[in-house]
């Protein structure tokens, strides 16, 4: 075990000592998690730009109402053209333009024309409904205050304050949106944190990619004659093979563990049930490490290993659903994707993270990953043994 641990340790030390690895192992995965979170993430507040008369009571009330709603934040604008431009450029989710005489018009119980500016997509329509509801509520209160004031001697300001108090005490109707029918994709990803999807898919991509590209270190060990020299020491061939395998697996586990810990700390990513996630990460890392060892035992030089590693690492990740979620694939492609360990790891992580799956729920995926481990380890060990002892 001492010898096996020595080989494993030296492989890990060499990976971390290579500065060129630091960007790809430590920085790039987090950058991609952030990028994917920015593209697909669902927990950003919808930003609604509001143009309206400064200090107007009706405008203040509508803005306060919108800000109080989950997932919405308002931003004050003074320039209608600027608001329009930023909605067009997707810097704002929507824009709302209230006329300068909005309070007076409401007090006169006359219709008010407001402009809602948004892109023609489903999200904008949802926002429009929320904005309309807020405006309708305040129009109704303003109309009621105006009517009451005309029928009584009570000043409108006092009636307005009373209406506001009454409104606070009244039960409110909360509307929850549930997608049904053809919008299965929306349901699949509903409830995910902004970085949850990116973190799990990038974990799968980078764990495998790092293990494959790290195979260049094994090529160096072979080409330099260090592996052969190891075989000339009183170290059993099994320990050498085990040490090389453990070295590659340690590299993969380091990559996976780094992504889990940093995304948990930096982005509060939900990794689901710890035991289930740990089991998936462990088996996938073993499969990745074994694949790295296989490449390291068949490639002739660093360049070949690097090319194969990057090509296979990215290709298999794309096929296995680490770049575009597997749910977007047509049925035929899903069948092909199942030949990759990435597919089973991504499916397991989806079960754990999106559907609160436990280790029991992902047993089929774990079984397939274990099969990949056995096959890849056997092949890699056989190839490396042949390279060491002829």
């Amino acid at each position, binding site marked *: 075990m001492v*010898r096996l641990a*020595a080989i494993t340790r030296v492989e890990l030390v*060499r990976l971390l*000592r290579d500065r060129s690895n630091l960007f790809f192992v430590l920085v790039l995965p987090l950058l991609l998690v952030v990028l994917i979170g920015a593209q697909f993430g669902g927990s950003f507040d919808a930003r609604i730009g509001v143009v309206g008369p400064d200090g107007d009571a009706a405008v203040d009330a509508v803005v306060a109402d919108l800000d109080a709603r989950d997932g919405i934040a308002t931003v004050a604008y003074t320039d209608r053209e600027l608001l329009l431009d930023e909605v067009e450029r997707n810097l704002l989710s929507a824009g709302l333009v209230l006329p300068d005489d909005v309070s007076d018009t409401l007090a006169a119980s006359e219709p008010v024309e407001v402009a809602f500016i948004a892109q023609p997509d489903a999200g904008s329509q949802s926002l429009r409904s929320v904005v309309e509801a807020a405006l309708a509520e305040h129009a109704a209160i303003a109309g009621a205050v105006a009517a009451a004031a005309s029928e009584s001697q009570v000043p409108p300001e006092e009636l307005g304050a009373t209406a506001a108090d009454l409104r606070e005490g009244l039960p409110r109707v909360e509307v929850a949106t549930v997608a049904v029918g053809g919008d299965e994709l929306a349901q699949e990803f509903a409830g995910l944190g902004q970085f949850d999807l990116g973190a799990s898919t990038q974990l799968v991509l980078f764990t495998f990619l790092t293990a494959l590209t790290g195979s260049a270190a094994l090529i160096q060990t072979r080409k*330099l004659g260090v592996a*052969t020299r190891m075989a000339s*020491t*009183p*170290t*059993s061939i099994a320990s050498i093979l085990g040490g090389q395998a453990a070295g590659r697996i340690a590299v993969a586990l380091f990559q996976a563990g780094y992504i889990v810990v940093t995304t948990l700390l930096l982005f509060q990513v939900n990794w689901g049930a710890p035991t289930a996630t740990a089991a998936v990460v462990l088996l996938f890392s073993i499969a990745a490490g074994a694949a790295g060892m296989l490449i390291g035992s068949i490639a002739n030089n660093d360049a070949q290993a690097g090319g194969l590693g990057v090509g296979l690492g990215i290709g298999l990740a794309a096929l296995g659903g680490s770049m575009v979620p597997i749910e977007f694939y047509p049925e035929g492609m899903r069948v092909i994707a199942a030949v990759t360990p990435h597919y089973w790891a991504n499916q397991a992580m989806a079960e754990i993270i999106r559907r609160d799956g436990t280790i029991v729920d992902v047993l089929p995926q774990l079984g397939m990953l274990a099969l990949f481990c056995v096959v890849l380890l056997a092949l890699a060990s056989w190839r490396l043994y042949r390279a060491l002892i002829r």
Partner: protein
Amino acid sequence: MQADRSAERIGDGRGSDPSAAILICDGLRRAFGAIQAVDGIGFTISPGETYGLLGPNGAGKTTTISMIAGLLRPDDGEITVVGRRMTPNSTRAKAEVGLVPQDLAIYPDLSARENLVFFARLYGLDAARRRERCDEVLRVIGLAERADDRADTFSGGMKRRLNIGIGLLHEPRLLILDEPTVGVDPQSRNAILESVEHLATEGMAVLYTTHYMEEAERLCDRIAIVDEGRIVAEGTRPELVATIGSLDVVRLEVAGDTVRAKAALEAHDEVTSVDTDGTAIVCLLPGAARALPQLLAAVAATEATVTAVEVRVPDLEDVFLHHTGKALRD
């Protein structure tokens, strides 16, 4: 002219007593496809003895030591190290052997000390012994001052010394050095040769492969001349030179068609071996002084011109030429 292809064993040097031998190789054979790389090699090495395998590149030296180090299975034959049979799985036999491969088998991105500590772990040294031996080896190979520098910052000679130091970590009974001075500057080369001489005085058995005649002559108590996978002659230097008998070496510097001149000399009855070395033709023959006019006439008949003549006593290179019909550098 026919080279003597049968192995010639001379005297009974120190390695001839198998009971005292550190290494016994018997009838080793190994083929790679159709190529018979090693074809019946056998020899023994005693404690404190330096044994040389001298032969050109491709003669089978590295294949032989790969089998002795347990890296390659022989197709036939047996290897015993300190009484233990050597196979790729025999870790006890391997514990008695220190291998210094021809390639620099070190991690360039680790320091000298890290490389030594790593291999000391593989040799099974405990922590205290590891520290002690690493410090000692660093001192012996002259790298104590650079112990914590990465190996890729070292000169070629320093890397070679580190390569040798790894083989010494566990104080093996048998040290195998496979062409340890290839690509080394003269100063480092001399330091390496002095180290090997010192190790032998401490009782270590050394198996030294080289294609440099001077190294074999300087270091080795006994030398095996290897060609095409066989030992064609074995013995001490004087014994090997004596196998040529009373042959002299004649070296003719030739201007003109050396191919025709060489053919003319090969046709001469008394010449036993002929080889070319650039513009020179080297012949082995008895009674060179007497035959020299005939040799010069034979060359002149080919319209080539002899520009210089040297007649000398034979060395190992000439022994090799005599036994194989070709030069050591071929």
